[in-house]
């Protein structure tokens, strides 16, 4: 038995894809999904191991059967009872496997991601948005579709079903775009995230030595690391899926170009936010107790203010659970949940006042410098949440925030010895090169220019030089991270 792994940045993963793509397109379109199912089962066994299989099979059988049963039940009360049982079953399995320590079970990889997708399927069938799937194996493919098996995105059955059913004809342009995106993702991960991780680990690993600007630097580098790690991972997943003609939903759209915290969350981990909005927030706000609360609040505080109270209460529940979903620990609840809730709600409450003040002193809020300031504000607020996300405990998170305001060696204006943070000068140069590429691509995207489309329109020679350069840069970046501890994706653990 060899130690073959299918990490998204491993050569074995690319060999796997390279072998799979021609097989996929050689098969008749209506049977292509079977190739993906076979590949997904193989991928799951290699990545998650045999102990994870019973759990995913259990989810598959119970929800497939449950959804069918739900369609045949006419009594609304029984239907409600069944959907409650199914939802409770899924949540209990997720809770036991993922968030309960000390139990002798092995959680299958990405259970937090595919459990949400399965929940959405069950609820969609209950609400009549989707019909229950007749083909159990096509449904199994939805649960375990291999590109999204490690870190999402969270998909909905109604988006995936038509794509699996119809298959795809070979589209050279699409496959090329998929390959370019995959390589770009690897470059982001290996050239930026893995380099930044070295310095971040040094700073966050020694909470005694580092303080002040070092902690601030470490936090900002972690923001860079997390973004390039997770979005790089998504580029690989979405790029790989594009090679099979299957389009997965975007998870990141230039999040650091946001000017408000709400906008940030519409651009960062989009599918998770959308899931919580559609399957938790809206049903919660529509529920009878919330409706009653709404009536009471409107009666007491007036229509405008009164309506906000149940919404903010619903948002509190959503953000608490988003934080909890990340790992079931208090530092995640704060760093990825409640702190953001506080920023979003206070942002919304303050917005009219800020608008008034800026008008009073004659500031044009559409001016470039003001937009930049707002982006910086969002970045810093997000960073404060990341301090908790990166820390081992909530206490360490608070401690790091406190240490951030302390002077370095008795002074607030001391030159930081960044070369002593574990990353070599060459590593920093490589990271900078990666950042320049990332920034350029993002800037062009912000201006509505899609680099991949532009690249495909260039003359043959230039195009091929770019392909080879990108591939070589990716290979070098992969070699740099090969054998290092930082090579794992952060979101793989969720």
């Amino acid at each position: 038995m060899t130690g073959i792994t299918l990490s998204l940045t491993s050569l074995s993963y690319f060999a796997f894809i390279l072998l799979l793509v021609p097989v996929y397109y050689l098969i008749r379109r209506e049977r292509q999904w079977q190739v993906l199912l076979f590949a997904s089962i193989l991928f799951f066994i290699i990545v998650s191991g045999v102990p994870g299989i019973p759990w995913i099979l259990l989810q598959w059988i119970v929800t497939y059967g449950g959804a069918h049963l739900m369609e045949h039940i006419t009594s609304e009360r029984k239907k409600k009872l069944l959907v409650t049982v199914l939802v409770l079953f899924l949540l209990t399995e997720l809770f036991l496997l993922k968030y309960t320590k000390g139990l002798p079970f092995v959680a299958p990889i990405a259970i937090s991601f595919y459990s949400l997708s399965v929940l959405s399927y069950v609820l969609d069938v209950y609400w009549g948005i989707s019909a229950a799937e007749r083909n159990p194996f096509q449904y199994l493919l939805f649960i375990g579709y291999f590109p999204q098996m490690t870190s999402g995105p969270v998909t909905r059955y109604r988006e995936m079903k038509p794509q699996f059913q119809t298959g795809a004809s070979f589209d050279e342009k699409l496959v090329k775009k998929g390959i370019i995106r995959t390589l770009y993702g690897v470059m982001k991960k290996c050239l930026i995230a893995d380099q930044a991780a070295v310095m971040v680990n040094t700073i966050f690993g020694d909470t005694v030595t580092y303080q002040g600007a070092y902690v601030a630097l470490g936090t900002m580098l972690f923001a860079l690391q997390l973004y390039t790690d997770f979005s790089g991972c998504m580029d690989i997943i979405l790029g790989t899926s594009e090679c099979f003609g299957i389009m997965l939903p975007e998870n990141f759209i230039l999040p650091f170009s946001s000017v408000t915290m709400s906008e940030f969350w519409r651009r960062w981990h989009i599918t998770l936010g959308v899931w919580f909005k559609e399957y938790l927030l809206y049903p919660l706000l529509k529920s009878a107790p919330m409706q009653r609360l709404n009536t009471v609040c409107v009666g007491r505080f007036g229509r405008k203010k009164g309506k906000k109270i149940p919404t903010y209460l619903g948002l509190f529940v959503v953000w608490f659970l988003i934080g909890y979903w990340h790992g079931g620990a208090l530092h995640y609840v704060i760093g990825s949940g409640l702190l953001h809730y506080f920023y979003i709600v206070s942002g919304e409450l303050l917005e009219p006042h800020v608008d008034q003040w800026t008008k009073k002193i004659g500031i044009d809020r559409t001016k470039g410098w003001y937009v930049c300031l707002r982006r910086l504000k969002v970045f810093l607020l997000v960073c404060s949440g990341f301090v908790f996300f990166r820390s081992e405990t909530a206490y360490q998170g608070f401690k790091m925030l406190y240490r951030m305001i302390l002077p370095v060696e008795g002074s607030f204006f001391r030159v930081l010895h960044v070369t002593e943070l574990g990353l070599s000068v060459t590593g920093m140069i490589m990271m900078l090169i990666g950042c320049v590429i990332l920034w350029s691509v993002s800037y062009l995207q912000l201006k509505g220019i899609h680099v991949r489309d532009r690249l495909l329109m260039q003359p043959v020679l230039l195009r091929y030089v770019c392909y080879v350069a990108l591939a070589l840069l990716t290979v070098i970046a992969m070699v740099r991270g090969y054998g290092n501890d930082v090579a794992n994706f952060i979101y793989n653990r969720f």
Partner: protein
Amino acid sequence: MKKMYAKGLLIFLAVCVLFGGILYLSAIDPFRGWITKITGSEAYEQQLNASHEVETYIEKAKQDDKTTKLIIGDSVCNSLFGELDELNPDYSVLCCNKGITMAGQYILAKEYLANHEGVTDLYLMMISNSLITGFDTDFGYQYAVMPFVKTDKLSYLDEETVEEMKDLYLSPFMTKKMVCFVEESPLMKKLYLNVLKDFRPTKLTLDFPDVTTRYLQKMYQLCEAEGVTMHFMSLPLADSPQRREVEAVLREKYEASVMYELFPDYYENYIYYPAEWFPDGIHPNVERSMKNEMVKKIQEANDLDWDLRLD
């Protein structure tokens, strides 16, 4: 699709050629330095010493320095006896590292006996951790393959062992040319060693590999044929419940093996010391005087007529 695959193949070949070029240059100055930096292979440049260390011992075993007693063993042996080499003109101390395996200890013994006259004793001292080390993908290539190939000592090993090594490390990587290339290129070393680890990860088992029992036997037979007395002894151990548990399992296995027939006293003379004297759990990190006490204890426990000068 065929057209696209042809184009893809072309790009793939271009990247392979370019990367092959980088790999080739990574062993040549002045490119080695910056390719090592760009590919983050600096740590593998520092690992050059592993092979050199063993080569030095093999070279030393070759030199007829008029000594008549040989002390070989693992790194724990080296920490106790290494410094005594210069103080004792009759003794040759060639304690190395567990990575060379028992086959490596055999090579040292054979080379020493072939180049020294009037040898009377051979002392082999190892802890059980070293006895359970066979050819692995952690240390094996640098401590065993590289020095054995570079000093042409593979011929000292039997066919079975060489085949086992070829199976694990792959034949092309056991040629002198390739070994020298791997040594010269930190990038190549990084890629090769990590691919080895990925595809054949080392699994630690509480069992003695064939290479240990086979070459201990061979060494015994070699000494017998040369009229040399062979002593096989244990070394100081950290006293911890885990260690005692492991030793109990290994002792049972040892007593069921052929090694027990040759050296029944190996497990009788185990000496435990306070665990805090062993910061890494294996190597004693104490004053020289305390190490000398440990040496004396070994002598007493094994009833040896050593005339070692300790200071």
